[in-house]
């Protein structure tokens, strides 16, 4: 028996928009043996998100008796059409001011705001572990990070990941800011996906606080039974602010040398 398809019927159902680009290829095929098979290919382009599935069947004419024969219908698996993956990055710093040689944490949050999953995401544009450092970069060192130490992670649609770095400002006065970005691969298309490149607010590196204290009695001389006041003047000679929360006074020395005041 020889069957020659003369017609290939397809039906598309679903919510996604699709446009036929080409097909079927080949347009027809002669099946010269009872177990012969032929494959036909269509190419469609998905135009809107959603889902769709194909159903198809073939008709052919028996080469001996010229009767028309219909194949059974077949239904494809369901295809989901997703929006492309999209990376959005934001950056935050733990503190706006640090003292000299103190650490500051920087948080880079990467979110997949698109539809398709994005894989193999790196959080710096150079593939190194460093963030971009602006300002007093020469005196700023990376102490730790990124944490979690998982370059090449995957983000599903709507998922986010926050990575943390710790940097230290070693020179004063200093003003530093940090920048970073993320790049990954769209799981559906294999295309590279780049995030925006946010820059943090500036971090001020200040001189460490230092204390100096002096005591001034008022009055400096008085007669027995009267009241006097000690003024403790505490000065912060550094640049960074401080909180003075414990002061104390004791008598350092005493001598019984005071004589009665002369009578007037």
């Amino acid at each position, binding site marked *: 028996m020889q069957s020659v398809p003369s017609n290939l019927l397809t039906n598309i159902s679903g919510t996604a928009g699709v446009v036929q680009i080409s097909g079927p290829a080949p347009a027809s095929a002669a099946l010269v043996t009872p177990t012969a098979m032929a494959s036909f290919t269509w190419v469609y382009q998905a135009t809107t998100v959603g889902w769709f599935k194909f159903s198809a069947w073939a008709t052919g004419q028996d080469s001996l008796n010229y009767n028309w024969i219909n194949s059974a219908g077949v239904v494809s698996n369901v295809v989901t059409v997703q929006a492309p993956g999209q990376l959005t990055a934001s950056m935050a710093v733990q503190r706006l001011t640090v*003292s000299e040689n103190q650490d500051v944490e920087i948080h880079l949050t990467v979110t997949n705001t698109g539809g398709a999953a994005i894989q193999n995401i790196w959080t710096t544009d150079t593939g190194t572990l460093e963030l971009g450092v602006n300002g007093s970069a020469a005196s700023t060192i990376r102490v730790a990070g990124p944490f979690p130490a998982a370059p090449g992670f995957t983000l599903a649609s709507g998922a986010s990941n926050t990575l943390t770095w710790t940097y230290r400002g070693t020179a004063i006065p200093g003003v530093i800011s940090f920048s970073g970005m993320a790049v990954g691969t769209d799981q559906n298309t294999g295309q590279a996906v780049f995030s925006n490149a946010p820059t943090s607010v500036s971090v001020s590196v200040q001189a460490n606080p230092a204390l100096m204290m002096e005591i001034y009695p008022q009055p400096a001389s008085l007669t027995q039974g009267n009241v006097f006041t000690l003024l403790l*003047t505490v000065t*912060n000679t550094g640049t960074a602010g401080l909180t003075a*929360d414990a002061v104390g006074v004791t008598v350092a020395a*005493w001598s019984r040398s005071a004589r009665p005041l002369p009578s007037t």
Partner: protein
Amino acid sequence: MTGPVPAVQAIPGGQARIFTYTYSATSTGVFNFTGGVYGYDGNLYPLPVSASNVVAAANQVTVYQNSPNLLSPWPRRSAAPWASCAPSS
């Protein structure tokens, strides 16, 4: 008697703040006072910093004995006895 007032103060960089103690002088003498202050870095709490004063004449208090009340052992007279000895004019 009282103090320190206030108990806690924030001190911005380059600035000074005053803590006050009030004492009552109950005995005489010359007193030198020493004090200490502890603080915490406002950028990285609780990184401690501290200082104490240098004992010097500037923080010295002298407490004198009250002036004595002088009382005469003789009775008071209406007229000074030496008035009559005054030379006549």
